[in-house]
């Protein structure tokens, strides 16, 4: 697109639309998209072009858009992002991230979006599962990929999803054949950051479970950076009938890491989606989990924990869409905010007309530990059917004075008593983590973060 045309687009984004164009214009995004535009099959090139067009029409959302009321996108809007420079090294020493390499897992490791290691030897049933980078999957089973990509994360009005599509290059592909109960957990490790110029990365992961399949997938997003590093990732999950997915997502980032993670899930009859989101944010993090319960008996458990301090911003959005009756959802999100951190929770429950016997519960609890910290929470119900059971709750408070007194009266120093109580608060989520090694690693991070010690891996 010519610069003149994009200037016109920028003008078209009137102040009132609630969207703004990038501060430095669309040119850098266009040239980034051009790098990938020629690769892949025709349908994918078309998708990318559509993504770029939508993004160019929309720009970035501002706080005037209800869904972004508390999420200021300025740290993203103002940067002149480019795709990260390819690393000159061909051999990567995985030892640097040893604590993150969970044993017993089959694993894909991506560094700055590039697949550097594929450890599939651990898979007990290698024929029942495809674990590939998206690029490789396109080469080996394109028809599957085509059916799934974009199916549950459509473009709509979501400019970040459109941007992800425009710059879509690689990601992870997990496909479990019907009837398989996968005994080996799958880990997807994404290492970002460590860049010298503002960089943007748009990975897309696709997880497909056939009917009656069962799997555990652990996504870990880690990294630290001096210059802004923006991860704009989308994960699409498609669950067949009676499929069970346990999906743990850990974000542990530091420094100028900006992270927008969107997970969209499509659930068929009798399927179960168990999501755990644990976030230790860098500068700016927003994690969204959206699930559609499309048939009878579909069940979703969404748990979340975020622990933030300093000046970090952390936002969790959930949306459970009870499209069909006889579906169940449970949500529990807990937040711990210290320093000058700003936390946001927005949980939505929709019950569509006719979705009778839907059962939805949602809870959000927040600990506010400092007067400079801020929490904005908005649990939301939109119910269009009468025979339903829906409830939600939210609390905001500080540590219980009585509990602190109890501990101190027994000789526990104030600092330690505080840590103990916060740890206990967070533990409700951590103890639900399915894999012991992941649970241990989370406990270690938690303790480190709470101790305020210099954070070394």
């Amino acid at each position, binding site marked *: 697109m010519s610069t003149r045309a994009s200037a016109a687009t920028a003008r078209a984004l009137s102040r*009132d639309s609630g969207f703004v164009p990038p501060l430095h214009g669309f040119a850098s995004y266009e040239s980034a998209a051009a790098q990938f535009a020629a690769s892949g099959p025709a349908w994918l090139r078309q998708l990318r072009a559509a993504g770029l067009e939508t993004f160019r029409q929309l720009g970035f959302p501002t706080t005037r858009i*209800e869904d972004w009321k508390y999420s200021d996108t300025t740290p993203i809007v103002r940067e002149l992002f480019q795709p990260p420079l390819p690393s000159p090294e061909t051999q990567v020493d995985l030892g640097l991230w040893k604590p993150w390499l969970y044993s017993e897992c089959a694993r894909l490791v991506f560094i700055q979006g590039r697949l550097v290691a594929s450890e599939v030897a651990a898979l007990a049933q290698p024929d029942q599962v495809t674990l590939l980078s998206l690029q490789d999957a396109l080469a080996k089973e394109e028809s599957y990929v085509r059916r799934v990509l974009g199916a549950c994360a459509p473009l709509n009005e979501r400019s970040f999803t459109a941007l992800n599509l425009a710059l879509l290059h690689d990601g992870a592909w997990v496909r479990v054949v019907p009837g398989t109960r996968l005994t080996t957990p799958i880990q997807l490790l994404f290492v970002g950051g460590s860049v010298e110029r503002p960089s943007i990365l748009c990975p897309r992961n696709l997880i497909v479970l056939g009917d009656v399949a069962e799997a555990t997938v652990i996504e870990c997003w880690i990294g630290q950076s001096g210059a802004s590093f923006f991860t704009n990732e989308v994960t699409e999950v498609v669950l067949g009938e009676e499929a069970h997915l346990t999906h743990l997502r850990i974000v542990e980032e530091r420094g100028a890491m900006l992270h927008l993670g969107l997970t969209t899930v499509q659930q068929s009859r009798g399927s179960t989606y168990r999501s755990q989101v644990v976030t230790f944010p860098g500068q700016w993090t927003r994690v969204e989990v959206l699930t559609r319960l499309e048939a009878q008996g579909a069940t979703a458990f969404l748990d979340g924990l975020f622990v933030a301090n300093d000046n970090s911003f952390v936002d969790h959005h959930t949306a459970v869409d009870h499209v069909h009756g006889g579906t169940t959802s449970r949500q529990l999100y807990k937040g711990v905010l210290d320093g000058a951190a700003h936390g946001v929770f927005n949980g939505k429950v929709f019950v569509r*007309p*006719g979705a*009778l016997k839907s059962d939805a519960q949602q809870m959000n609890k*927040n600990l*506010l*530990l*400092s*007067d400079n*910290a*801020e*929490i*904005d*929470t*908005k*649990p*939301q*119900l*939109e*119910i*269009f*059917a*009468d*025979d*339903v*059971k*829906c*409830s*939600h*709750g*939210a*609390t*905001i*408070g*500080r540590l219980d004075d009585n509990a602190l007194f109890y501990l101190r009266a027994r000789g526990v120093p104030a600092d330690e008593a505080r840590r103990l109580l916060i740890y206990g608060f967070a533990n409700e989520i951590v103890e639900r983590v399915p894999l012991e090694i992941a649970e241990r690693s989370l406990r270690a991070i938690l303790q480190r973060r709470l101790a305020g010690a210099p954070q070394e891996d």
Partner: protein
Amino acid sequence: MPTSTAKIEELVSREYQHGFYTPIEEETLPPGLNEDIVRLISAKKNEPAWLTEWRLKAYRHWLTMKEPTWQNVRYQPIDYNAIHYYSAPKMKSRPKSLDEVDPELLRTYEKLGIPLREQELLAGVAVDAVFDSVSVATTFKEKLAEHGVIFCSFSEAVQNYPDLVRQYLGTVVPYNDNFFAALNSAVFSDGSFCYVPKGVRCPMELSTYFRINAAKTGQFERTLIIADEGAYVSYLEGCTAPMRDENQLHAAVVELVALEGAEIKYSTVQNWYPGDKEGRGGIYNFVTKRGICLGRGSKISWTQIETGSAITWKYPSVILRGDDSVGEFYSVALTNHYQQADTGTKMIHLGRNTRSTILSKAISAGHGQNSYRGLVKVMRGAEHARNYTQCDSLLIGDRCGAHTFPYMEVRNSTAIVEHEATTSKISEEQLFYCQSRGILLEDAVSMIVSGFCRQVFQELPMEFAVEAHKLMGVSLEGAIG
């Protein structure tokens, strides 16, 4: 429950009881809005120059504003130039006493069940009645004057107590607050004014009855209540309108000011014409209500029963500025047929040890859509602020909707904020239990709904609680099936 369906259909078709029109001679300004109309309204009320200017400032600001669209209600665009901004029953001069009020008007109020005269004698409730745009009668003036309480129409207040009006008007809801508040500030025609002096406990309930009569008019009243240090006042408003096919706009502004140790209790029983069962006609009730607890230890309590209006859209709010001040919001909102409601409150905690309670009960039936939208904001300086919010929704029928949009923004770590919400339907078991004991279906529904709303009704002054119960019964009849 097919057996009861027929009976229910019959009950549903029961019409709005206050839907009559009073053929009374009215003086109406031509439709449309411009600076001349604003000046004309101001001139008609013989207002001082500062107020005319204030109106014009509001009008000019309104022109720069856009009608909001974020609310969870749908309606056809309003043509602001088709509305009559002023309509008044013709009178030679202000009536000195009830005897001088047009008997046709008094009969209207009698039909509505508020015989002014009778109330004057028996009920002990002082009533200010607003008919279309102007206040027609205020009862019990002398008795109130003995205690130093000023209770009169807004126009009278502008004439007789201009300093008080000037001091407080627009301090809680500024003229540029929002689209409809700006419109109201430009064209408001009348309303009630109340001032309770220091240390006085107002000896009776004060009440205003609003009535829209003329066609194609908007009603824009403005209420200002000031409770001086240590004063107490309980105020109640009720509203009705005739049945018409077109929608009528009601955009009022209510401002409450509570000084140190003062308490204001404001109750509303809103029964504007809700439209017919196809969703035609009805009142658009777009109202800005806000109170400020200015002084230490002051308290403002809102209670609202919202059963009428095609669309109800309002958020009675409290700004808790004084230390130890208290804000309360109790609400029952009922939507039947095609009614829509987007209502709730805002509690803004500024002072230390400020407390707020929110209790919202929403009932949706037919195609009704009911939203609770509330904001609890704890600012940095509001040490030990406390909020408890509960909002429950009851759904009757599978075509209605209940929505909850609570916002909690907390910037102080000593704050404790709690919110809980539930959504459910009237259980078959409860209905069966009642019916098996010989209680008719509609009585059983009414009973269960009353129980659901009990906590809110308890907050209403006695005689209005009775009225509210009856209103709920009527509004809900036939909603089950």
